[in-house]
């Protein structure tokens, strides 16, 4: 089980007796909490918009890039909680195509941070493979800086065999880029197939079905998100997963992204459980 692995990992880190005891207590309390919550339906797919890093840095008077670093730490702990909880797919909005409009030094900093973290991730590949996490990078990867793109592709290849849990990182992604691209790909495929089929079945071939479109989207490999969590209290989608979140619960805690913790995940899942029947009904209608 993942929680056993977590315990082993945390044990390895701690040395003193008291800290080990507290660590054990922490894990046990969490396990108990998750077992209680599992009595209701657990969402399959949670999506996070990581908003508020810069505001966090300003609030605590840190230097400019430290907010993003703190955000990465928060991301790791939230991933841990989600996987312990039993959530199979986690999507994260790391970088938008619009974020390329920010100051170049900030963009460079974020790209360097991503590169560094992916390299760090590659070093611990055997542990990742033990947990069975598959990492996918979603978006227009050609727009990324070359070293990041190369590292991302290597990471995707290395974890391609894992199927237990999925982590989808959206970089250089906007929904309004993804949807026209899916149309383009579907058209290409349709015209490619048509050349082979000549004039038979022309009527059917003309229509592009929803199924084709969803297959061609970047996010076609995973089901739609059940919950979309946006930190820092803003309630907007910012061009993230517009197609896929049509029937998902939106939750906007006021905490900035580096301040997000276990209680927000728990609260989001409780909200989902409260509205479970409504969303199931909506999904059946669609």
């Amino acid at each position: 089980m993942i929680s056993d692995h977590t315990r082993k990992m945390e044990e390895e880190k701690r040395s003193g007796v008291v800290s080990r005891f507290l660590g054990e207590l922490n894990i046990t309390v969490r396990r108990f909490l998750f077992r209680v919550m599992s009595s209701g339906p657990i969402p399959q797919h949670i999506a996070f918009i990581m908003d508020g890093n810069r505001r966090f840095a300003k609030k605590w008077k840190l230097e400019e890039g430290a907010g993003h670093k703190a955000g990465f730490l928060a991301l790791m702990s939230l991933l841990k909680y989600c996987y312990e909880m039993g959530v199979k797919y986690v999507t994260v909005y790391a970088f938008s195509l619009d974020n390329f409009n920010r100051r170049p030094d900030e963009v460079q900093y974020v790209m360097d941070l991503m590169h560094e973290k992916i390299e760090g991730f590659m070093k611990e590949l055997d542990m990742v493979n033990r947990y069975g996490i598959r990492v996918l990078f979603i978006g227009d990867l050609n727009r990324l800086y070359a070293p990041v793109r190369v590292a991302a592709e290597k990471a995707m290849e290395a974890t391609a065999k894992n199927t237990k849990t999925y982590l989808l990182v959206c970089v250089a992604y906007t929904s309004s880029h993804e949807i026209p691209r899916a149309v383009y790909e579907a058209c290409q495929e349709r015209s490619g197939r048509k050349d082979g089929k000549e004039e038979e079945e022309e009527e059917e071939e003309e229509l592009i079905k929803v199924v084709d479109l969803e297959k061609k989207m970047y996010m076609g490999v995973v089901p739609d998100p059940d919950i979309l969590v946006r930190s820092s209290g803003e309630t907007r989608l910012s061009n993230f997963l517009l197609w896929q979140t049509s029937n998902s619960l939106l939750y906007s805690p006021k905490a900035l992204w580096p301040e997000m913790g276990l209680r927000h995940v728990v609260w989001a899942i409780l909200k989902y459980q409260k509205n479970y029947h409504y969303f199931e009904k909506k999904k059946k209608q669609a």
Partner: protein
Amino acid sequence: MKESAFIMQLVNGTHDPRPKTTNSRQVAEPEILIRGYKHHKPILSRVTDNHNPLIHITLNLSIMVTFTLKISATSMIASKTNILSIYKLIHKPSYFTTNRFTKPYSSYGLATTKSYKNAQSASIADEERSMTEFENHALRNGLRAEAMPKHVAMFMDGHWKSIKARDLPPELGYGAGRRSLKEIARICCELGIRVLSVYTNFPRPKEEVDFAIDMTKSDIEELSRNDIRVSIIGNRNAIPDSLLEIITRAEESTKNNKTLHIIEAVNYTGRSDIIQACKALAGKVKDGELHPTAIDENVFQQELETNCSEFPNPDLMIRTGGKQSVGNFMLWQLAYSELSFVDKSAFEFNSTDFIKALQVYQSRHRRFGGNKI
């Protein structure tokens, strides 16, 4: 020459507004320059006193070029800061022009936000005429006129809870819904909100159609009196032909009304909108009108059903009924909209709730993914 030096100073941003030689002409300069491109004649008439056509032509060209093309960033920024500061001294800022001055053009090069920013109003005359009216209404309600959303989308949900709870027959329920809609439309006209989209997701499409037809049939004269334009988006296959005729007649007769544009969504879902846009694009590609590589966001947006309006993308979406989700309404268009969820049901939602939602909208900070503006 003094005049040419003055003009070059103004263009390069080192203009000193204090009058130097002749008082009356110098003081009048800033006001005229800022008012609009069409008002730069007095400068030229002053320049032509020189009786030198060459200077007249070059100065004319330089003014036109700097104002219309905004060549260099430095002069743009310098002219912006000067003009903005002088403008603030003379005029109250209006919600059309401050946007033009405070948002730098260069920041939206790469991304998709260009198609999402609601374009500024084309006619300057309209804005001058109604600026004070809108401001008065806005200030009376505690809102700022310059930060008013151009397009508000209303998702009216929560019908069934209230109808069942109150044991009302559906006709009465619809009547209450119609009344609250009319009130909200009236407020929009007063405040200067240009487009109002309405979506009522009744469980069965027939009821939606009935509701929409009710609205349009009885209110056509009232709509044209208030200068309101109506259009209906959604899948028209479910509507019988007679009603379809009424709808098209209403749309045609109110096509030229400019104050408020009400978009009713009947039998509409965001996904079906995107799919029909995809089909239209695929059809165009098949016919050879469009090359597949030319498909991008702007092309796509033209195919959606909301392209009938000037401001297709909502700035604010209000959902009544308490459920916190987008609910398959206008998926593409809501990419950068602020979402507001209200716990009341659609019939209890009245004008004070609407004003409160607008106040919350105005307190939010919209960045569109870029830097803080």
